[in-house]
């Protein structure tokens, strides 16, 4: 199995701030890969580049799928800069062609968010049905007249939605509005929703945030199961080392927008640069005893 994602020299600049500086790494298919790093290291920014939310200032991100390569950073119609009708062209491109977020999603990349973004006033199962929008029959007339083909596709979508709800242990809360669910259930529902799009690659932004020990154990089992049984590649940002070290195949460490280390969890753990990034220089830091007090 080859790589599923190739990130090459990706830089992104927000005004004067260089949020990502020539970040390069690869991710193998059917791996669980973690991106770790201190706060403000650029992890979520990298995710946003990967899923089409941000356009990198430089560099390229290639998604490989069924032996074909898709450049996520390049617009499908080619560059419109320098085109005499560039401005208008850009506008029309925005209107008529799919935008990068949408395109990335169609290529089989799905994600969750650091701050949960569910459709709060829709029920859990409706959230999962929405996620299957592109795979169901969404023709207007067949829906209004409920043609047999439409009913079949709805039934299939429902079955899939129930499958993922059960997979995440949410079948009892399927008809409760997502906004009214408890926090842990909302996190699970978001993961279920991401899975309902049938992705190849799923990007999880701090999936363990705010979960208790039992819930984290469940989460680990779920993620491993996604890789083993459902043949999905999982890219995750996580602070919780219990998740990162136990389940990931590879770890990428970011600090100040740069990759400072990459390897298996065990390798990364020993890397002096990682230790420095996390704990700071020994002599610059506060004395050990005061840290213990804190």
């Amino acid at each position, binding site marked *: 199995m080859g790589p599923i994602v190739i990130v090459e020299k990706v830089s992104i600049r927000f005004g004067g701030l260089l949020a990502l500086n020539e970040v390069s790494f690869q991710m193998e298919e059917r791996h669980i890969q973690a991106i770790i790093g201190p706060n403000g290291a650029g992890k979520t920014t990298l995710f946003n580049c990967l899923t089409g939310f941000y356009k990198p200032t430089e560099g390229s991100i290639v998604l490989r799928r069924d032996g074909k390569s898709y450049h996520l950073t390049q617009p499908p119609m080619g560059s419109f800069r320098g085109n005499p009708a560039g401005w208008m062209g850009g506008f029309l491109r925005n209107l008529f062609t799919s*935008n990068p977020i949408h395109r990335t999603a169609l290529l089989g990349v799905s994600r969750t968010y650091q701050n949960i973004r569910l459709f709060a006033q*829709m029920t859990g199962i409706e959230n999962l049905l929405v996620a299957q929008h592109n795979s169901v029959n969404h023709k*207007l007339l067949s*829906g209004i007249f409920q043609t047999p083909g439409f009913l079949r596709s709805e039934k299939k979508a429902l079955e899939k939605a129930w499958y993922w709800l059960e997979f*995440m242990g949410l079948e009892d809360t399927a008809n409760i509005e997502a906004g009214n669910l408890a926090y842990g259930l909302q996190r699970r529902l978001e993961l279920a929703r991401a899975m309902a799009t049938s992705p190849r690659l799923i990007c999880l932004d701090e999936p363990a945030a705010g979960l208790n020990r039992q819930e984290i154990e469940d989460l680990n089992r779920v993620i491993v199961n996604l890789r083993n049984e459902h043949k999905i590649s999982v890219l995750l940002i996580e602070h919780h080392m219990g998740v990162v070290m136990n389940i990931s195949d590879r770890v990428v460490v970011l600090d100040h927008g740069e990759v400072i280390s990459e390897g298996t969890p065990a390798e990364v753990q020993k890397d002096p640069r990682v230790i420095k990034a996390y704990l700071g220089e020994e002599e610059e830091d506060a004395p050990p005893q005061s840290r213990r007090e804190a």
Partner: protein
Amino acid sequence: MEIDFIIFNIPVIILEQGALAAGFLASLFYIRALDLRAYGEMIKDAAIVGAIAMVLFVPIVGLVLKDRSLVFQIERSLMLVGAVAVGRLHISGAVRARVGIRILWRLALVGISETFAFFFFPEPQRNLIVLVVLVVLAIVFALEALLRSGEKLDSIGSKIMGAWPAVISRAKGRQGYLMFFLVGLLVLLPFEPFINSENPFITDYHLGTLTQTLIYILLAMGLNIVVGLAGLLDLGFVAFYAVGAYGYALITLHLGEFGIGFWWALPITASLAAFAGCMLGFPVLRMHGDYLAIVTLGFGEIIRILLVNMIDFTNGPNGMSAPRPTLMGLEFTRRAKEGGVPLHEYFDIPYDATYRYVFIYLVALALALAAIFVFRRLREMPIGRAWEALREDETASKALGINHTTVKLSAFTLGAAFAGVGGVLFAANEGFISPSSFTFVESAIILSIVVLGGMGSITGVIIAAAILTLLPELFRDLQQYRMLGFGLAMVFIMIWRPGGLIKVRRRAFVRRDSARGASNPALGEAD
């Protein structure tokens, strides 16, 4: 409709007195239920509100400009101030009071409005005001009782109301029959004047009004797609209504000779309006909330200004006439146009103007039912779910692969098509259209129907459309207060019941197959 005030007077007086007594009782309850400090706070609060109201109302209400001089109407402004202050007192009391007392408080509102009306309005309107308040209260009570069906009811008043939901929940299984019965009633309604031709209860005027209500239901269903489902606040909805009405008038005027009449014009105009909706949709795709609202508002104005100024095309502010619909080529006039055949001659029956009203009413009923049906289906379809997802979180829905361009455009397009059909019906019902029928006020009325009824809901919107169009007809003397009432209702509904009269109940899904519980590969052993 004329209301015989003498009939209403005695019960109204009894009710007023009862309500005043209840209000007094309610205030006693506040004193007993709340400690004195809270009571003092309430009074202080009401006094402040009264003082502000005085500064706001005395100049505008009390001093009326007339020929560069002032007419003093201080008394009327002070009454208004008093009503505001007392109303505030009661509201803050009711918010703090127990549920049971709230019912007394509502009755007290009738008392307040009576006192208020007594000073503010001349004789015939006084009782009307009280009546309006009573009707509204009755509706609120009934709806609340309906909504509380499952909850435990904790006061005598609501227990009485609680008898209702039981009846309804028992009828739930027979909901289909109920619907069938209601629709049947509505279909048979217009034939009453023929059976009871001596002294018909339902007149042409009634039928015209009911037709207008049905048109509003149709329009509200269209706007419900845009605002209720897709969450796009469209303040220029009237533009598509105008496109429909003018499209009908122009098409039949210019293409009438090719045999294009009402029935052909209907789909053509609907597509025209849909196209206009799509065109509006393009520029506003990336706008959200507030921006969208103001741009659509501007769009509505643009259409109206065009209608006024393109005199060669639309005959400007003088308006143009629209033909009446025909039934398979048969006309409803006394004498047919060249080549046409009037209905009564064809069937060899005496001419009766009512036929036309009955016919348009039935057409409007059919189209309104179709609109409700389509809306129902849309809500449960992938596109409906995508609209709602877009409303809830545009970014997240994009990341799920939903093409927000097509989804948004389809909401605008479909909503506009509904409005186009409504416009054709309006033009055919009135027989005459002019730009003054398509002002922002009309958009505001449709929006308030959707908002009051509950965004995304069907039953609520139907009820709201009926209330908002029939109530003003019932109380014609208060017609001028209609928009004020709509505005107030919009503000207070948003504060007290943001979901509208009837909050949408989500569709519940039941797992059918027996595979339940069999596969929980990840969490199975943990539980």
